[in-house]
């Protein structure tokens, strides 16, 4: 038998290949182990090293050597335990002795395919460049030509309509005793419409989010409505809703999503007779901007008791939402059948609209909806949207930016004279760089009736570490160090839902102030400037031309 040859560095990766490199400071570390205790992926570990110094202190060469074994914190050179750069170590280190540093030379994607499977992650498109939305500027400022408004002094009414708006001449109106009234006996269908705040919290499921995160968002939304008087709504995501919420008065602030997985829908249907309020709307999910054509996936490690109960599935199984609805094979069928069923469930009292991922074919969907009297709107989710789990390639390379997609759809409605009839909701990258109000205002002025946010609120309300440099992005494996996207109580109990709710309130109040700061100089205080594209400019001619706005430099 031949002795096994002892290899040393063969096929081992150097730290230079890793996306983040841990900078650890020996001189500051007190070896308390806080960093290694919290590292979500065990990318750092304590170990020992030998230090050896050979000295010569005499007047002639008099060698003496000192050997010392020291304890250090070391980064693991295993791609399966790569440092994600989340910085939880930095957060907990009492001595500022450790922090991950982005390595621009990383060859991460070359290696992150062990076992022959592509790299999966959570988060959003890794593209730190400035998005089109962030390049748009508001250039039509009312100075002396129009009366300017003062955001701090004037009263504003920032609201939008969710639902199909019937033209007055089509309304069954009658005059009774000199007063205009609806003719209740008319068989003309009057679509349900909700007046809501134009920024809504987009669909993030129970399951994708941890209980305190989801509840924190929900509570923040309820607070905004009931204490602040801001009619902000939130979409449930596709993981069902807790029956306690379904049967509470707060349901009216929630849009219930139905997706191809139909998770939790038996529980929702069972709750209908017990509902004291109708939901704000029903969203039918056909696509997700972050990963178009890729279905939803909740990995087995996140399907614990709570999720199993709420979704009505066994524990510890992968839950796939296929990229297509299983019983719908054409756009007519998909749209008509689904909208009809969902409307019927709530007696046609609730707006029902589909959500699709940004795509060149969005107009085709839109035109189908325009012909369907029960369609309450269309939500388009652009490529910069976030997700809990997807293949990296789907996130990084698939999808359509929201700006031109939304604009194209809006202008199409304008051609048909239906721009005030069918609301468009834009999503995907709103607030990507933190400019929530500016991005929202830009989309509104390009033609959106409202916008939906997801990743932004996770960052702003729960301190999510994720960014476009692939920081953290562990949402898919349920190891979220912030407790946002995990079902592990040891992790999610780090999150205080009261604090999340408070941040939601602060975020929306601040965004409201900022929207006023944008709308006031443009002379708008009561009507949302939907499609007011003459107020927008961009410093790029091609973008200007594509969006039909002016070029300013």
């Amino acid at each position: 038998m031949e002795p096994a040859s002892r290899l040393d560095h063969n096929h081992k990766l150097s730290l230079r290949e890793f996306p983040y490199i841990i900078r650890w400071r020996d001189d500051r570390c007190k070896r308390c182990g806080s960093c290694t205790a919290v590292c979500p992926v065990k990318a750092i570990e304590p170990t020992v090293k030998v230090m050896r110094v050979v000295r010569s202190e005499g007047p002639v060469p008099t060698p003496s050597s000192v050997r010392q074994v020291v304890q250090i914190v070391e980064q693991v050179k295993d791609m399966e335990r790569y440092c994600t750069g989340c910085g939880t170590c930095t957060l907990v280190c009492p001595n500022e002795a450790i922090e991950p540093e982005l390595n621009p030379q990383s060859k991460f994607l070359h290696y992150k395919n062990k076992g022959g499977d592509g790299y999966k992650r959570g988060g959003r498109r890794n593209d730190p460049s400035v998005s089109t939305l962030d390049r748009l500027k508001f250039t039509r400022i009312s100075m002396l030509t129009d009366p300017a408004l003062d955001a701090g002094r004037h009263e504003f009414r920032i609201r939008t309509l969710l639902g199909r708006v019937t033209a007055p001449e089509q309304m069954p109106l009658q005059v009774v005793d000199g007063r205009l009234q609806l003719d209740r006996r008319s068989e003309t269908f009057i679509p349900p419409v909700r007046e809501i705040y134009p920024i809504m919290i987009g669909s993030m499921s129970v399951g994708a989010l941890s209980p305190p995160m989801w509840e924190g968002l929900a509570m923040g939304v309820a607070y905004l409505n009931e204490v602040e008087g801001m009619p902000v709504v939130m979409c449930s995501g596709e993981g069902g809703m807790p029956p306690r919420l379904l049967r509470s008065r707060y349901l009216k602030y929630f849009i219930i999503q139905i997706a191809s997985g139909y998770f939790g829908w038996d529980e929702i249907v069972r709750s209908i007779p017990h509902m004291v309020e109708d939901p704000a709307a029903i969203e039918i999910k056909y696509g997700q901007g972050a990963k178009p054509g890729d279905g939803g996936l909740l990995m087995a490690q996140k399907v614990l008791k709570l999720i199993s109960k709420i979704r009505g599935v066994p524990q510890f199984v992968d839950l796939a939402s296929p990229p297509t609805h299983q019983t719908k094979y054409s756009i007519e069928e998909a749209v008509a059948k689904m909208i009809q069923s969902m409307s019927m469930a709530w007696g046609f009292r609730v707006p029902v609209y589909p959500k699709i991922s940004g795509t060149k074919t969005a107009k085709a969907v839109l035109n189908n909806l325009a012909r369907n009297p029960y369609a309450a709107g269309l939500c388009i989710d652009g490529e910069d949207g976030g997700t809990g789990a997807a293949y990296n390639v789907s996130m990084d390379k698939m999808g359509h930016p929201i700006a031109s997609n939304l604009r194209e759809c809006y202008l199409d409605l304008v051609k048909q004279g239906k721009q005030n009839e069918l609301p468009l909701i834009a999503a995907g990258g709103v607030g990507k760089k933190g400019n929530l109000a500016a991005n929202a205002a830009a989309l509104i002025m390009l033609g959106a009736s409202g916008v939906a946010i997801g990743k932004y609120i996770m960052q702003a309300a729960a301190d999510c570490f994720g960014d476009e440099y692939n920081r953290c992005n562990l949402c898919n494996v349920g190891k979220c160090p912030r407790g946002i996207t995990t079902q592990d109580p040891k992790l999610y109990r780090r999150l205080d839902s009261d604090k999340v709710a408070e941040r939601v309130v602060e975020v929306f109040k601040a965004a409201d102030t900022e929207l006023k700061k944008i709308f006031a100089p443009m002379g708008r205080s009561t009507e949302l400037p939907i499609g007011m594209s003459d107020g927008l400019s961009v410093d790029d001619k091609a973008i200007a031309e594509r969006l039909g706005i002016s070029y300013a430099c």
Partner: protein
Amino acid sequence: MRAKKKTVKSKASDVKLKGRKQQTKTAMPLAAQSSPFTIRGNVNGQRVPSRILEEQIQEAVKHGVREMRIMAQGQHGIGGRIWPSGEIIKITVEGTAGQRLGSMGMDGTEILVKGSASDDVGWINCGAKITVLGDVTNGAFNAAAQGILYVQGGGGARCDTMTKRNPRFEPPQSWYFRGVGDSFAEFKAGGIAVICGVRPRNPENVLGYRPCVGMVGGTIYFRGPIRGYSERDVKLLDLTDQDWDWLTTNMKPFLAAIDRMSYYEELTRSSQDWKKLMAYTPQEKMARKKLHMSTTEFRKNSWEKAVGPGGIFAEYLDHDLTILPYITTGKERRNKPLWANEKYSPPCAYACPTLIPSHQRATLIRQGLLQESLELVLRYSPLPATVCGQICPNLCMNSCTRGLIDKPLAIDKLGSMALDLPAPRKEKPTNHRVAVIGGGPGGLSAAWQLALKGHTVDLYEASGKLGGKIEHCIPRERLPHQILEKELSRFAELGVHVHLNTLIDRKKYDAIYKGHEIVIIAVGAQKGRVIAFPGSEHVITAYDFLKEANSGKIHALKGKRVIVIGAGNVGMDVASEAYNFGADSVIAVDIQKPAAFGKEMEAATSKGTQIVWPKLTERYDHTGKKIHFKDGSSLDADMVVISVGDVPVLDFLPPDIHTERGWIAVNNVNQTSDVKVFAIGDVTGLGLVTHAIGQGRLVAETVHYQMMHAPRAPELKQVIPYEKVKREYYDVCTGDFSAEREGHKCLSCAACRDCHMCESTCYWGAISRVEHEGGSYEYVVDEEKCIGCGFCAGICPCGVWEMVENI
């Protein structure tokens, strides 16, 4: 009359300078006028422009006029900008006052408007006292910083906005007898406003819609009902005594100025009739709660009342609904350490087919128990000096972690040191009978183990000597015969019934089978394998060659050229022996990369053996003394030894013992197709002596369990990964062998060496050493102190601590 004349003249700008000269000359007479000096805003039906009227006022003041009457017709800014001279300038405005009356008015200017005034009265007032015996329209007193505005009527919208207070001067005052319009006092930064609320235009609201937006300073006293104010900016208060003093004192001149003294009693009836609005200080604003109610209150008072206690998910959660810190202890830790002493096998024991725990021998040496250490090995092998010490390739040493630092532990030498030890003590007899067929290393090992456990063993050996291939085939120069003999004599101490010269045939086998509970077949492979090629009848097998050599037969090889087909370790033994017999050259050929390694190969090549490959034999020309290969080459060959392995002779076996390609088929515990028959060693496939000994030991355990009615397989541990053992603690060691030295060199892989490193390292003081009765010890973790950081596991020299998920 002069003035009138002058006004007319001034209408033409080309005569302005001349006109001024005239004024200068006539200054004294003008000032001496007894009746008020009058400037008319309309002359001969022509409205005088604001610019001219202003010039006339300024000229008049310059010429000493201290009291004047303006008959206004909407002129802008009347009465302002009269730079202070220390004297009082009184201006009475009649007619229609224009916008911004008294704007930028200065100290010493007193303006009385006999009627209402238009927008922005007192704009940026810097000290003028303005009395309006009527209403003021929008924007009165906008940005006023000093001075007084008395209004006999009410104010329009946006009055008192942006008023200031300059600390160098008295604050501005504005008094409104009736009420004011919407957006009053926006961004007010200083000054005192008084709204008396007498017959207000809106009886429900004397301050108009949304007053005080952005107000940061000053005070507003008002009397009468209001409908809200900017609560974000100002607070509503009762008047203090000081307020009341100020108000009642200053009320008199106001009422006197607007000719409403009759209201004094009513307005000063009670301070309860009045309220004041004051701006919140920046400190108050900073200290203010950002939200109307905390979200925690909202949860308690609204949310949980509607959705149930604990929130929307409470019914599904089985943990406390409290918040956890990032650094946790006890059951909230994500990971926890385990003192997994001896959970894993060290590489040495794992690599040894007999699983000899050499690390335990090192531990005993370190504890000063050298004798116990040497004795330990006899529990595992009957032939430590022979096998470990001499002929074994020492797989243990090849895998020894210490070898990654300098040299492996000298386990072979430790084996040799056991040579003179007596046999260990046997267990009490069990009366179980076991037959072992074959007295080679496998059979000896099995018989040794079973005898130690107290079983009765019959050992059958075909030849006249025990030892099998060790005795018969291994060159004496590699194994001094006396070592084997010494160890066989120790074996004899155990009382195994040895039946020498007992070749087993089918009949004898059947008798043995019937007479024993268990039969262990360890007959080895005793027939050299021969590959058929032309001339192969003239070759000799390695088995025969070596056996003859060990039995004393002399091969006359002086000056001969020997070819060995098959360059494995047996081939190397053949080559060595051939040289010993005087061969001139020995060439070992192989069809593939030779399998020879270690001591055998070193011995053979040091004597001159060449190894050539790949060579596929075609034929042997016995007469021409040449061996030909398929590649066309040939070599001189006086003698050809074929060393391509041995095969067993199994003619004694009954058909229900299954064989595969000539070997006895066994399962993972070396059991044959007959549950009471086991087979070990070369009879199941060729291996090393140590494999045979290992199988003998493990099969003895299996058999023991089976006979004692506790059937199970021997426990096999996983090997500890090298990286878990921290070599960093050990320096390169030089020097000669001594048992003590080896004891300290051992890294004690996977076995605690009781060094206290973990205890000293733990920052949280969670690890302590607990000693049990009988001298055993363990390291334990205080769950309430441990945070699960993994330092103990990371720094443990032996890799004993391991981190596991805390579930």
